[in-house]
């Protein structure tokens, strides 16, 4: 199996890795780069637990090959709070108890961040449809939706 050298940017850092072309970006993030915050819940793009931003676009990293990351920009949950301060979404998820087991949480946070960057004032329905590809089995989504709406309100206020 031939491996391919890939150079990419992850959370602002330039990184290099050798990838088997069959390996997904999720495999590479988790196993090669030690960024295990992105989770695999299905491997088929149905659960959203592996959500990352690729050149600013929300994607399932299980549906991207590692070799496709060449020359691109990847943002993961690990880059969401670069300093000591949490991103407002992270804080609101905690305040609203929007997580129980927490396994789907990184994916929800990355997807919600992508939503609020495009739509700072979403309706409840817009939040629910945007996040329909992020499965949560614990919460019934209620507190997640409230947390996203509350974070959006706070971010609009701060902006």
């Amino acid at each position, binding site marked *: 199996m031939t491996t391919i050298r890939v150079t990419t940017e992850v959370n602002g850092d330039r990184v290099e890795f050798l990838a088997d072309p069959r390996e997904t970006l999720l495999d590479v993030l988790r196993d090669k780069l030690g960024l295990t915050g992105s989770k695999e819940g299905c491997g088929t793009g149905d659960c959203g637990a592996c959500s990352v931003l690729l050149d600013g676009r929300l994607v399932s990293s299980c549906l991207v090959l590692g070799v496709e990351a060449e020359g691109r920009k990847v943002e993961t949950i690990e880059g969401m709070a670069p300093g000591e301060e949490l991103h407002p979404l992270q804080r609101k998820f905690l305040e609203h108890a929007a997580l129980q087991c927490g396994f*789907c949480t990184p994916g929800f946070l990355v997807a919600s961040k992508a939503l609020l960057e495009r739509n700072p004032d979403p309706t409840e329905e817009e*939040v629910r449809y945007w996040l329909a590809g992020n499965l949560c089995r614990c919460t019934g*989504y209620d507190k997640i939706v*409230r947390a996203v709406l509350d974070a959006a309100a706070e971010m609009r206020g701060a902006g």
Partner: protein
Amino acid sequence: MAKDDVKQAYKLVGTRVLRPDGLDKVTGRARYGADFAMPGMLYGAVARSPHAHARIVSIDASKALALDGVKAVVTRADLPEGLTGEDWNLQENAMAGEVALYDGHAVAAVAATSALLAKDAARLIEVDYEVLPHVTDVDEAMKPDAPVIRPGAADHTVPDGMPPNVVKYFEFGRGDVEAGFAQADLVRERTYRTEATHQGYIEPQACVGQLGSDGKGEMWVTTQGQWYVRKMCADLLGLGVAQLRVTPSEIGGGFGGKTTVFMEPLSLALSRKAGGRPVKLVMDRAEVLRATGPTASASMDVKIGMKADGTMTAARAEFRMQGGAFPGSPVNEALECAFAPYKLAAVEHIGYDVLANRPKAAAYRAPGAPMGAFAAESLIDEMARELGLDPIELRLLNVVEEGDRSSYGPKFKRIGLREVLEATKVHPNFSVPLGPNQGRGVATGFWFNYNGDTSVSMAIAEDGTAQVAVGTPDIGGGRASIGLMVAETLGVPYEAVRINVVETGALGINEPTHGSRATFATGKAAVLATEQATREMCRRAAADWGIDPDAVEWVEGAAQPAGPNAGKFPPMSIAEIAGNMSNTGGPIAGHWEGVPRGVGASFGTHVADVEVDPETGRVTVLRYLVVQDAGRAIQPDYVEGQYQGGAVQGIGWALNEGYVYGADGRLQNAGFLDYRIPVASDLPMIDTVIVEVPNPGHPFGVRGVGETGITPPLPAIANAVAAATGVRLADLPMNPPRVLAAIRSRMDD
């Protein structure tokens, strides 16, 4: 409920604090099952049967072993022989012996230097199968000519003459049901069916196992119960139980499905064969659905008699459940819970546990209770409509209270069903006007709650902060609730307590986080352990003051003289006592081991409002209300979260979830694409009311809240659909083809 409405009898208990593990979980730092790696680690993969039922003629792994980097292959021949009972069942389920019993049954496993290589190697393992006739439906499996899955598997409960796939038989009740039906003004009898559903945790099973030739091993695993994993793995591999150390990772959901083992023992078997190198095994979603525990499918007959005023005179239930190719469907629990909310003089329950060619069922949140509630509450609703009675008033008329005999036998202790029903009646959701094609459904559900083996150890640190070692993994905020109770008891800030979920080497045996037991049992044990530590701190203060320890009490984080000595010395704070402990006798700690007594049962009532598209059969949930007795809500956010999560799992079960088997006995929907759990856009907000009728058996009144919430949704949704359409669906899931067919068959009448 508004945030401030919860009673504030305590400083900390009942407040909405942040969970202590929250920061790790919103930053991606928390380590779950698949996030762990060890030096020298290999990756495993499992080869699985594509057949529902097939004799394994031969297994040839030579091509797999020929691949560069493949280090070990194991089959059943690598596991010890001679196991019996549930140990044998677990071993047989972990790896097929002579016969593959279901689509997805493991037949061999391989360890290699990369995950891709392990998968490639697993595909190269050649298995010669002799395909056997199969059966996947419970009613079909009970027919006399059904394929026999395991001859002679029936246990002592099964009377002679039953079909060969019936492996357990249950019969209990009291009173004269026939006389009861004779007294009734209305008697109805119906048959209901529910399909198997999966717990659907988002985190697949994952572990890293390491086992040396000295019989000592380690495992890092996502589980609800590390001691269960330890015991099961040790038994299945023939190890000394204490030689295996099992560390639980953070857990990405379980709902009962992670109270047992599937591929975990295989990682140890592979490791042993690969010279003791650690082996990581991570299931993919298809494996999770095909080969871990779903719940049972059920076929249920219910008969109820009612007076014209709604008084129930008798009830009878006969339930058949298949829990896969192994005994253990929750048919008994389904029966016990079905009529639990009602006062009944005459009641009869009959149950059959049946084998079929499906994966071995695991526990799923209030095992059995949702099915039983679906059958009983659907019929009660139908009869209430026929008699023109309000569903809440009917339930209040028959409500069980303290001292009433339960349908399953013993008398109830203090319970809160009446309070739940009264709170439901006055909730605004219950009187919102409905439009065309809309309907409202009400249903009640019950779960016993549970205690179980519990061991907790706590210790005071040098600065007066506290650490607590608990054995129940935190799935839904358990650290927060236990932390609150310990801090309340100790009289210190919540932030001064750290709750650690520890590995098997650190405590006596603990049952898993199951049975809604963590906040009740671990919480009670933690409080008792803390009280042991506070007694010791009082003793040290007393020694310092030179007074009798009995004359010292623990008040708000300090020892203070009491009785005749009251006021003689200033209170001695926990920080003072702790800071001086190395000079006053050494470490200060407390522990508690046992089975905490005083479990309090929990009832809930749900109100579902739905709209049904008469042209397509699509059911939309418009509004949903959960009212449930928590006993006491220690951290109300997480109590509401349990109510909401349980309700939505039940909504999924009612509408679109369900195992689909083809004529070939293969699972047709082994992925989240076609195993359709509810998505965010399917749902409204889930409204909650926390009723608090404290459990006298717990220091803070806790009953346990995890499970009751999944019991009413199946009938609540069915009753709402019936109200919206005028047709009643007796088979779950109520997916659009079924609902449309029911609507159209009514139009044809």
